[in-house]
Structure formats: C-alpha cells, structure tokens
C-alpha cells in the first residue's frame, strides 16, 4: 500500500475517533459513537498490516497475539463489576503506557524498520520524540499501577509522604529532561535505559502521596498522560492516526482533571503535591463534636419520613459504591414512586472514585438517566424538597465549605442538602469524611443519622415501606 494512501486512511481513522467522542454528547448517540470507534480501530489495524507487507507466516503470529489479548480483554470487560470501573480504567492505562514503552524500545533497537535511521544513529527529531514518548509511557505505566493498587485496596489509599519528597521528584524530573536532550548527542543504550528507569521511578513517586479521594483527578491525569505518550510515539513513527488520537485523549484527560479539580475547589498542583487530609489539626473541633448530640434513627423512621414526603432527592457517594447498594436503592425508589413521591438523584462532580462513577452505577441499577442531575442543575431544588437521602456521601454536602474560610474544603461547590426539610444520612459511623472535616449537618435538628451499611439500611427501609 502506498504511503499516501495509508496516510489518508489513518486520517480517516482519526476522524472516526473524533466522531466516537462526539457521540458521547448524549446517551442516544453514544452507541453509534462506539461503533465509529471500533470501525476506526479495525481500519487502522488493517492499514498497518497491509503497509508492512506482512508475510503469511507472520500473519499467524499476529492473529495469535490478537486472540490472546482479545480474550483476556473480553473476559475482563464482561466480568468486571461496575463498582470496579475506576481500577479497571487505571489498569488499562498502565497497559497503554507499557505498550508505548515497548514500541519505543523496539524502535530504538531497530530504527531502520520504522525508517528513522540506523541503530544509535537515529534522526535528531525522532530521538527526541522517542525519548518523550518512552518517558511519558513509563510514567503512565508505573503511575497507573499504583493508582490501580490503591483503588483495588492492594495498597493503603492514604497518602504516603516522606521528607524531601518534592525535591526528589523535582531532581528526577530535571534528570529526565536532561537525558532526553542528552540523547541528541549520545544515543548509547545506557542513556536510553537510565531514562526509562528514571521515568518508571517518577511515575511511582508522583502517585504514592495522593490519597484515595483524589483518585478522580489521578485517573483523569493518567488518562491524559496515556494520550500524550501515544502522541509521542505517533511523532516518532510519523503516524497521523496516533498523533490525532494522542491529542484527543490527552486533551480529554486534561479536561476531566480540570473538572475534577474544580469540583473540589483545589488547584491541580495542590492535588499533585498530595498529602491532602493527613494533617489533622482540627483535633479540638473533633472533641467538641463528640459532645454535641446527634439524632440517630432506624429504618422505620426513615421509611416513615420518606413515605410521607412529596419529594425526595437522593445524594449518592462512594459509600454506596463500596456497599454495592445501587440496586437496593433503585428498589427503594420504586417503592417510593408507588407512594407518589417524586424522586430525583443529585450527583456531585467528585462523587465516587472517577468522573461519572455514580452515573454508571445508577445506570447499572436501571435508574433512568433523566432522573439523575448534576450539581448545577439540581442545587436550587433542595429548598423545595422534603427529604434529602444522603447515601455514602459526606464532604460534598458539608455546608462548612460555604461558611468557614478556614476549613480545608472552603470554596468547594457543595450540594445544599441542608435546605431540605429533613436530611437522612446513611453512614457507617461518625467518622469525618476524606478531608478530615467534621460535618456540622450531623448535629442539626432536622438531620437523622442512619448508622448502618448502606445496602443493609436501604434493604431495611424497603421492608418498612411495605
């Protein structure tokens, strides 16, 4: 296949991928979008097979690799529970990172097969692009593995910090940049491998200080990195499909990171530096808190309150995902609807462990998406609502974010659940949320605490609704 024809077909691949993302602007068009994406991928694979003049025997190897990878991927895709989506995505990012590293190393050792020059005599532009690609790929790889382990619970979700951490990271960062530039004059393999090892190390180091609830930012950021890695490899291989895709994925991840940071009113730098929620200087406020009386209730009280309400807003959070309570929740809502209660769902941008996490869980439980609202669309409705049912969320409802400038979460957009006539909190205990801030809502007269596992409590409420 001529280089011009294959370039045009790669361009079409890029266009199909743009349409795939465009499709996600609404649930109706999204499946068509996914179809465009798959078509683009098939086209890219076919074009690349045709352009390398593959031998028939090698085609068999390709099919074997595709079948191995495809069956692993297929099994994972069908088995994975929706609650585990964040760690799945993190795991997949690590694979993209590793694939980018492997392709770059392969291109380093056989540049002639890519038309980039000869071994240790690679074109200047190509070696810089290769250095960038391999470095970002390596960072994505180890960073995603740490994110995966934190999300999967194989590693503590709490931030890991040590003195001099930022200096070490800065030094490594400078080292990596210098090595990439140094590759221009000296392409020996030691330099190349030191670059890879330093990048692997920094990927590990930048993710360990970031805590569990900041994971939405981390996953989005790694999503972005995997895109830039692909773009770096695309420049190295002079491949338009990879460049376009890398740019799309890179900007997509960057936008999601921005949305997540805004949802927490924190700067990107602040999240990356990590350690949030560790310095608990609010000990005295905690002691005060213990003295304050809390109204706690049982499933019967909750059922009574909601059955007699005319409207209920449900606020789900990470606790719902942990307890796998989404199906029970939906059942409860069905019962409430039979009692002519108007029910809607309010989702905070950072609820859960990845962007859109709660929406997917509710979709899994067959909640119609037009009953699910984003913060800006529903926040004014709380004032006209009888009951707010907060299940597994905490910080995102804390009014202190609006009132106390000293609070670490001050300025974060929150759901105004306190404006409801009554608030129900399903929580396992009195422990403060991730930010380490006590939630003053717990002590209000119109708040009823329901201390239990989210799923068990919801099921008990269902029984009491009959």
């Amino acid at each position, binding site marked *: 296949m001529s280089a011009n024809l294959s370039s045009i077909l790669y361009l079409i691949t890029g266009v199909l991928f743009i349409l795939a*993302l465009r499709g996600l602007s609404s649930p109706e068009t999204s499946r068509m979008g996914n179809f465009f994406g*798959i078509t683009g991928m098939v086209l890219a694979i076919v074009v690349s097979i045709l352009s390398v003049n593959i031998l028939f025997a090698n085609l068999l190897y390709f099919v074997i690799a595709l079948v191995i990878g495809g069956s692993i991927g297929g099994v994972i895709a069908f088995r994975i529970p929706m609650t585990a*989506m964040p760690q799945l995505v993190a795991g*997949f990012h690590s694979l993209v990172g*590793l694939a980018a590293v492997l392709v770059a190393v392969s291109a380093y050792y056989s540049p002639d097969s890519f038309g980039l020059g000869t071994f240790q005599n690679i074109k200047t532009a190509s070696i810089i692009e290769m250095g960038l690609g391999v470095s970002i790929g390596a960072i994505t790889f180890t960073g995603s593995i740490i994110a995966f382990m934190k999300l999967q619970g194989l590693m503590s979700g709490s931030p890991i910090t040590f003195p001099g951490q930022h200096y070490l990271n800065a030094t490594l960062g400078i080292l990596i940049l210098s090595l990439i530039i140094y590759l221009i004059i000296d392409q020996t393999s030691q330099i190349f491998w030191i670059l890879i090892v330093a990048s692997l190390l920094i990927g590990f180091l930048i993710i360990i200080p970031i805590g569990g609830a900041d994971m939405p930012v981390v996953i989005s950021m790694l999503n972005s990195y995997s895109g830039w890695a692909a773009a770096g490899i695309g420049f190295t291989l002079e491949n338009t499909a990879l460049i376009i895709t890398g*740019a799309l994925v890179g900007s997509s991840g960057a936008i*999601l990171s921005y949305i997540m940071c805004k949802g927490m009113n924190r700067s990107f730098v602040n999240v990356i530096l990590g350690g949030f929620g560790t310095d608990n200087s609010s000990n005295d406020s905690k002691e005060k808190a213990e003295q304050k009386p809390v109204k706690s209730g049982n499933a019967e009280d909750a059922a009574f309150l909601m059955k007699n309400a005319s409207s209920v807003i449900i606020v789900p959070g990470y606790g719902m995902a942990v307890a796998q309570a989404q199906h029970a929740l939906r059942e409860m809502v069905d019962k409430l609807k039979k009692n002519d209660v108007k029910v809607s769902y309010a989702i905070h941008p950072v609820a859960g462990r990845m962007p859109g996490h709660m*929406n997917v869980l509710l979709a899994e439980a067959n909640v119609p998406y037009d009953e699910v609202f984003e913060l800006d669309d529903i926040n004014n409705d709380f004032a006209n609502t009888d009951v707010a049912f907060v299940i597994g969320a905490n910080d995102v409802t804390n009014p202190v974010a609006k009132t106390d400038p000293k609070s670490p979460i001050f300025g974060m957009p929150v759901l105004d659940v306190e404006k409801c006539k009554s608030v129900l909190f399903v929580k396992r205990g009195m422990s403060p949320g991730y930010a380490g801030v006590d939630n003053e809502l717990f002590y209000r007269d119109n708040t009823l605490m329901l201390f239990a596992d989210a799923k068990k409590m919801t099921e008990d409420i269902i029984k009491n609704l009959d």
Partner: protein
Amino acid sequence: MEIDPFIFRLSIFVLSIFIGYFVVWSVTPSLHTPLMSVTNAISSVIIVGAIIASFSSSSAGNISFSNILGFLAIILAAINIFGGFLVTQRMLQMYKKKEKKKNK
C-alpha cells in the same frame, strides 16, 4: 523553501488538541466514565506501532529483540482494544435499557 514534514504533523497535533477540547466539553457529565474507557480503547491505536515493530524487516525465522517487544505490545494493545470497547459498549447498553423501559 520546503517545509519540514514535522511541521505538518505538529499542525495536525495542535489542531487535534483543539478538536479534542471542544468535543470533550460537549460530552455529557453522566457519560464521563464511558468517555474514559473509550479514550483508553482508542489510545491503543498504538497497536499500529506494535505491528510495524513486530513484523517489518523480519525475514521469517530470524526474530529480533524488537520483534519480540512488538509482539508483546500487540498483546497489551489488544487487551485494551477489546477490553476498552467492550466495557464501553456494556456501559452504554445500560443507558439504553432504561429508555426502553420508559417507552413501555
């Protein structure tokens, strides 16, 4: 004076970032999780590089280090392609079921 082809690629790259910017802002927040899984799937188009790495310049029976790395990269990318698109499809399917129920 001839323009370096690199400049063309850079132009494509910069314009694609802008396209990505506008397209992604139009994605509805409720589909942000499928967005992540589908971007993950499409970034596996890196399989194109893996294919070139595994199969070009390899005369049959003479397998180089680069070919092996390429082969491994194909497997990794394939996990991502199949896993990514299928899990996205599975999620988007869930958004559809409800529509049907409502219509009934």
